[in-house]
């Protein structure tokens, strides 16, 4: 199929439609507006539903309703709006329903700003709402991946009955790139024998519910859910390894940060620094094993993030703090330049000073380095 030039946000919308999603609920917020606008235009033409909800809270609960009926459904928002959705996301997770939530992140906290950010990493990968749960989190790094990972997120969500989140940022949402869209799937549906569709007086009633007042039952549900999470961690980790074959230093970055990092790595290689990149495509499950293996031949790690340093914690955990991990970050809507990342890579290889960091977070190098080497 021929490539078309699309904005990242629109690529998500079109890919969702092609993946059989016919129900979209949202509330206006920058910088994801194009997604809702695209759905508003397209859904009525294809017999789908676009509904502009009264709030993010209502939108996610409409998603909850459609998900209970077993149909593919999504909502999209940006950081402050996704905070509002957390209650509903927790209920959806607690009811074991599939759904797709898109977060085109902007800087925070609070109302923050409208420029790109990755500072919702903790919220996305550690649960976000109340209770013990995970989302499947995918992190696109190009407009092409906005489309591809939308389809993947729907499929994985259906397969495991775990809600998924596409964690993008304002840059990829707003930029235009050529994209090859998948052939449309015939709308719907994986068999969903648990859905509420009316009993037709043919079966006992189905109940979609997250309430378990008996603690033994609730504990059992949690254990079962975490067994599913373990299966996902076994089977669904996705990442890209870039120039890692002979790498002595490992950069870890996702989304737009990974693209900046690739340029910096190319420049560093020209200077003779053997550095590679591990780019998590799934942020949850996180590519722990790939990083642990990298720790066998890499002397140090660098986490490049558009936040005050969130993913860096998972990097350290993945390698059991056996190697120094430092941070190269910008925040509040700023993006590190390739030169800034290159400087950080040089620091890593010189090992004379930790790394460029807005808050002088140098000690992370010494702290984790000293103990384990």
């Amino acid at each position: 199929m021929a490539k078309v030039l699309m904005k990242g946000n629109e690529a998500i919308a079109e890919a969702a439609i092609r993946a059989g999603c016919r129900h979209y609920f949202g509330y206006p917020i920058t910088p994801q507006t194009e997604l809702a606008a695209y759905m508003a235009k397209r859904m009525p033409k294809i017999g789908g539903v676009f509904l502009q909800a009264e709030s993010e809270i209502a939108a996610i609960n409409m998603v909850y309703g459609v998900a209970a009926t077993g149909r593919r459904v999504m909502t999209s928002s940006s950081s402050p709006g996704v905070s509002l959705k957390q209650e509903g996301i927790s209920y959806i997770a607690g009811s074991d329903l599939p759904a797709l939530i898109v977060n085109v992140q902007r800087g925070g906290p609070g109302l923050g700003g409208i420029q790109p950010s990755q500072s919702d990493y903790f919220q996305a990968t550690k649960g976000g709402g109340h209770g013990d749960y995970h989302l499947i989190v995918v992190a696109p790094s190009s407009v092409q991946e906005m489309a591809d990972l939308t389809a993947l997120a729907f499929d994985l969500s259906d397969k495991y009955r775990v809600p998924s989140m596409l964690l993008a940022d304002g840059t990829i949402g707003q930029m235009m790139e050529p994209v090859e869209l998948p052939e449309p799937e015939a709308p719907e549906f994986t068999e969903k024998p648990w859905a509420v569709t009316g009993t037709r007086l043919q079966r006992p009633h189905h109940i979609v519910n997250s309430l378990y007042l008996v603690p033994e039952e609730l504990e059992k549900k949690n254990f079962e859910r975490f067994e599913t999470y373990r299966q996902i961690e076994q089977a669904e980790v996705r990442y890209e390894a870039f120039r890692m074959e002979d790498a002595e230093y490992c950069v870890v970055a996702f989304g737009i940060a990974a693209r900046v990092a690739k340029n910096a790595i190319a420049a560093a290689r020209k200077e003779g620094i053997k550095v590679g990149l591990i780019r998590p495509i799934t942020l949850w499950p996180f590519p722990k094993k790939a990083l642990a293996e990298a720790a066998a031949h890499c002397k140090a790690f660098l986490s490049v993030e558009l936040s005050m340093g969130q993913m860096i914690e998972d990097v350290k955990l993945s390698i059991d703090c056996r190697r120094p991990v430092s941070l190269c970050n910008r925040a509040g809507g700023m993006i590190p330049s390739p030169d800034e990342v290159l400087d950080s890579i040089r620091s890593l290889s010189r090992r004379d000073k930790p790394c460029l960091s807005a808050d002088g977070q140098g000690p992370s190098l010494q702290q984790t380095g000293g103990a384990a080497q």
Partner: protein
Amino acid sequence: MIVFEKPKSLTDAELHYCPGCTHGIIHRLVAEAIDSLGIEGNTIGVAPVGCAVMAYNYFACDMVEAAHGRAPAMATGIKRSLPDRIVFTYQGDGDLASIGMAETVHAATRNENITVIFVNNAIYGMTGGQMAPTSLPGQVTQTSPYGRDVLTAGYPVKVAELLSSLDGPEFIARVAVNNVKNVKNAKKVIEKAFRNQIDGKGFSLVEVISACPTNWGMTPQKALDWIDEKMIPYYPLGVYKDKSASAGAGSARPQNGQEVQP
């Protein structure tokens, strides 16, 4: 000849409601409406957070359990996904008129084709008797121990009146279940609220004035009397909006014979 039986669309589960609580009557009226319209196999109910949280165990149709106040949004999703199914919510006053007010108003103004059963007992029952958005001025509750002071706590929300000011909704009525006459009328009105949905007419809400003897600190009989003495004067019964009726013969007369306050 059977003269009395349990409605088919109620399960055999034992209700957990307190003695003298009128939730049981309202459950039964909803189930009777579902039975008489023959829609059980085609109906999906949305339970609230509140005393009726476990309504999903009692209604025999497919059920979902919504987050607090979000039942109209969840019902919207279900109805938009399955437009030929009958979707109803069953909500209390804290759920519908406080935390879920936005969802209520917007489902109404969209004229979402769902049926809402709104149980107003002027108190938060499940959490042990706190002030509700519908608690009466002066009403003593756990969180208004000196009586609801309208200067600091504001006034009760009159849901039927409020929603009937919108252009969207099809049908808004208030009924009570504190005596046989009122129960019989409530049955008709609830059935109409379901029939409206079958006919594709749109958002139909029935506010049901209900008793909570436990948290009102009254005997069941005294609680039923209190509905007559205190609740109904503040919350007059009647049909507040009936779009089809007023568009047709122009007769929007209260169905239960009681005049609607202007």
